[in-house]
């Protein structure tokens, strides 16, 4: 039991997420309880507009929680300073980079930002970590290219390398497979799985690629209209969770293959 507690990286209790204005509170989802363990690949799935992005934004402290708690390494997220958070959690977002004029190396090097001195000089240990990240993602040949020269798939790999260079316990990715072709979707998710094995980092990503996520993830968080379920994919299948994910008029979930099929 104690052993298990140590392995918990991120934990939510009675978490309620949404938007708060002066007049009203819009609850997007509530009563969210899950525990994410060290070295696991976790997929977050759910229909459009169900609140996946809101949940991720709350977990990375871009947006405050409405109620309940989020604990990162046992400490409440709200009492973690931005700089401490930057050393424990890194992100890959869907929003485009402000400047695509950076070279790949410069971009990955920005991951070392929380650790460098006031003017951002890279020490030997920083360059080692950067080179290691480039090596792990296998993008050493891209390092002198500018970001505007890269394809979507390459850019996604570079952004993952930057998050790796930030050297955090957990990496959160918001829909890392959008805009990618089928091969690169599989490639990126497979890469994330490999990273959890090689580096023992916890990786949480949201995705619409439910079939791929079922095959690759250790744990999945499924957001439904009324509740949020977190379990191993095989348990989720046998409980019929995916079946209830979407309206049933067009597609149905096939338990044996673990994928969705169009109704004839």
């Amino acid at each position, binding site marked *: 039991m104690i052993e298990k507690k140590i392995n918990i990286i991120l934990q939510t209790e009675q978490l309620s997420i949404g938007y708060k204005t002066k007049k009203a509170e819009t609850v997007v989802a509530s009563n969210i309880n899950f525990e994410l363990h060290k070295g696991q690949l976790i997929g977050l799935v759910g229909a459009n507009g169900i609140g996946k992005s809101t949940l991720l934004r709350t977990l990375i402290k871009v947006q405050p929680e409405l109620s309940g708690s989020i604990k990162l390494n046992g400490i409440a997220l709200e009492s973690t300073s931005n700089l401490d958070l930057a050393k424990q959690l890194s*992100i890959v977002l869907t929003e*485009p980079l402000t400047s*695509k004029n950076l070279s790949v*190396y*410069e971009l990955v090097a920005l991951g070392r*930002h929380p650790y460098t001195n006031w003017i951002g000089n890279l020490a030997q240990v920083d360059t080692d970590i950067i080179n290691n990240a480039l090596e792990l993602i296998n993008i050493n040949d891209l390092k*002198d290219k500018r970001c505007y020269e890269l394809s979507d798939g390459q850019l996604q790999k570079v952004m993952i390398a930057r998050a790796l260079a930030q050297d955090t316990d957990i990496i959160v990715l918001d829909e890392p497979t959008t805009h990618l072709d089928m091969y690169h979707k599989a490639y990126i998710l497979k890469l994330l799985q490999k990273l959890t094995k090689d580096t023992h980092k916890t990786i949480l990503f949201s995705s619409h690629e439910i079939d791929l996520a079922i095959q690759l993830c250790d744990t999945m968080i499924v957001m439904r209209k009324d509740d949020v379920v977190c379990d191993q994919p095989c348990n989720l299948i046998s409980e019929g969770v995916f079946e209830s994910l979407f309206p049933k008029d067009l597609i149905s979930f096939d338990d044996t293959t673990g994928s969705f099929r169009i109704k004839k």
Partner: protein
Amino acid sequence: MNTQKTYHFQFTLLVVILLICFFTNISLGSVSIPLNSIFGSLFGTIDNSTWQLIITDFRLPKAITAILVGSGLGISGLLMQTLFRNPLAGPFVLGISSGASLGVALVILGSGLFGGLFTTALISKWSIVVAASLGSFLVLLAVLAVSSKVRDTMAILIIGLMFGSITAAVVSVLSYFSSAEQLQQYIFWGFGSLSNLSWSDLIIFFGIYLTGLILSVASIKGLNSLLLGDNYAMSLGVSLKQNRLIIILATSLIAGTITAFAGPIAFIGLAIPHLTRQLFKTSNHKILIPAVFLFGAIVMLICDSIAQIPGSDYTLPINAITALVGAPVVIWLLVRQRKMMF
């Protein structure tokens, strides 16, 4: 591993060009002074006291002003372009020059309206400097107050532009009621001038400029993180609010004093950062800030040398020359839009 480029060659080249431009600028003027006498006067080993006076009391302060103005406007332009994620932002987008113009317009043109309060005899160089500083400082305070409430940087940009419209309107109302003489004086201020500074002015100028420069250097890391976007910057532990405050403060100090002492000098702040990015091919502010410093200083010295029209008694308005250099750059940037990066 050549991934961390050092740019030694480019920097050495820029320093050499800067030195050449500096001495060329000093040696040019309506009175022709031989080159060895110029070096002589710089080190105080010259007999001709007229030449000595021209060099030390006129040309040298002017050349130093050109260096401070060019580098300062370039750096504040760079800061604004990164902060507002807008390649066409310049140091004056916050309404700094509008504020200064309004202050100066009130002093020069308002004297007609307010009668005996300001007599023409009172409109000395210093009252213009004070009015310009006060004007830009008040607009800056307003912008800072707004920026602590508004999270969106684009909104601040638009608010800065709105301040510009308001001042332009007030200035036109004032001009309507002004005499031709007053209008002329206001227009002359608008031409910009590098030659109005004495050594004691320069010391004040340099002090404020240096404070702004130190703040700019201190925000290098934050500026680089902004290249990723606000959310990424935050995820790297950067405090967005504090970062923005320092950047706005640095720009206002630098651009505000420059406008106060040398008038509203256009285009340099917008064009220099782009030219530097073309030359250095990087967006890293650790490289860009010193590079923009050198490049801005060089361009301003060249503009000033052209403005004097070597060999003649005429001096063209510096603002006309910078626009002649700057406007083609802006057009060129728009034509090459695909690569209008920052």
